[in-house]
């Protein structure tokens, strides 16, 4: 085929080169270009798939932090839901940001508590306060809804706390599943009650145990050596040996017995 070049007249070759050069003008940008740009300027989030104890999830994150967690299913459906809820697009990425993925995995299995940034911009101040408080509940422990409302200075807003937790855009990562009803019922959950039970079981707080304690009327555990009372799942209560463990049905009963509330799990206002 090079022979053709030898046969070509120089003028024609020149014209061919001009054509060849203007042909170089067309190229198709890689598909990843638009998403990458929009994610970098904050007009879109990236999302990817991760495995969890309750099955695969989609995690979305942008410049402001992690923005959404949803059960992984159809990608188009996720993208539509995401755009409808947050008003910006989410684009799938093959490889999640490595540091972020590691942090999330560590937080899901309780092996790490590295800080994670969340994008809670669309939420009210009250909702944000509720979620930030839920974030304080350690892996392997649970708190009642009333604890959150009291801790954020809105003791009368127990029901609103439940609603705010139900709207948690980042379930699992902000552990709203660790908030349970005072009567021992596990309560509702953004990802469904079954998922909530499964997560609690995976974290070493089996729902059956929580329900059994509630049925027996046990709301607090105390230690007769320290005279301190805690929520039963508080790490200090769990450390107490059976010989020294005492149970209380109410704060009044605990205080009447001369116990003071734990400063770590804060089962009641210290006084």
């Amino acid at each position, binding site marked *: *085929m*090079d022979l*053709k*070049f*030898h046969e070509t007249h120089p003028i024609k*070759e*020149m014209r061919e*080169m*001009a054509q*060849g*050069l*203007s*042909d*170089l*003008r*067309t*190229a*198709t*940008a*890689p598909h*990843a*270009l*638009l*998403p*990458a*740009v*929009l994610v*970098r*300027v904050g*007009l879109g989030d990236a999302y990817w798939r991760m495995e969890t104890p309750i099955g695969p999830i989609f995690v979305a994150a942008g410049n402001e932090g992690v923005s959404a967690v949803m059960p992984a299913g159809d990608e*188009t459906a996720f*993208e*539509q839901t995401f*755009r409808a809820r947050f008003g910006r*697009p989410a*684009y*799938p990425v093959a490889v999640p940001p490595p540091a972020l993925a590691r942090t999330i995995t560590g937080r899901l299995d309780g092996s790490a508590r590295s800080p994670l940034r969340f994008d809670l911009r669309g939420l009210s101040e009250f909702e944000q306060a509720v979620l930030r408080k839920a974030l304080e509940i350690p892996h392997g422990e649970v708190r009642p809804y009333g604890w959150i409302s009291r801790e954020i200075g809105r003791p009368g807003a127990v029901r609103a706390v439940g609603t705010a937790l139900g709207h948690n855009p980042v379930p699992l990562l902000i552990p709203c599943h660790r908030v349970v009803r005072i009567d021992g019922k596990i309560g509702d959950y953004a990802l469904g009650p079954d998922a909530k039970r499964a997560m609690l079981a995976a974290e070493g707080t089996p729902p059956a145990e929580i329900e059994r304690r509630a049925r027996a009327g046990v709301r607090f555990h105390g230690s007769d050596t320290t005279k301190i009372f805690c929520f039963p799942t508080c790490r200090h209560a769990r450390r107490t040996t059976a010989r020294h463990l005492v149970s209380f049905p109410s704060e009044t009963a605990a205080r009447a017995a001369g116990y003071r509330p734990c400063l770590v799990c804060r089962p009641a206002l210290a006084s």
Partner: protein
Amino acid sequence: MMRTTAEEATPVRNVDDLAERLAADLDGCFETLVRAYQDRLYAFALRLSGSAPDAEEIAQDAFVRAYRALGSYPADRVRALALRPWLYRITLNVARNRGRGRRLRLVSLTGDDDRPGVAEPVAAARDRPESVFERTERGNELAALVAALPTRHRTAVVLRHVEGMSYREAAAVLDQPIGTVKANAHRGIRSLRAALTRTHDHDHDHSVAHTSESR
């Protein structure tokens, strides 16, 4: 990936009033800007850098810079922007700055010219029907020769002959006198012709290696 039906039907919408719309609603219209110019800026970056991965990064950086600039300009300035030359100028600057960094790194390491992507598609093209093969072959050859030109010649050739700008437009993008751009484009074209003649007189294995060495 979700797109509205309207966008699907006309991927590049009318961009005549895009500057106007960007001035009014940057966040709402920026995606339209990227969709409208991504192929052109990517192609431009590809000819400037000669490498697909570099071109992708250059185009990405250029759009991010454009977004930041648009956000910092007063609305009047955005409204008055000639978007195409402005975006080309940003892309050119990104490519130039990278070019400097890259050359320093190369010198400090091995001095080898690693330009992946230039000659790669040739092998794949061998399987195609002959006419397409020849065109692709020559396109790749030309792309490689353009990539091997000295930067100032290459930039002028790309703006004038690849992008098809007038010398006046090219001079505005480069912020150089028209005469300089003309002279650089002519020198570039002369080198390309010489290289093509050399290639076709002496070379039958389609290698572009010896032309790269002349950089």
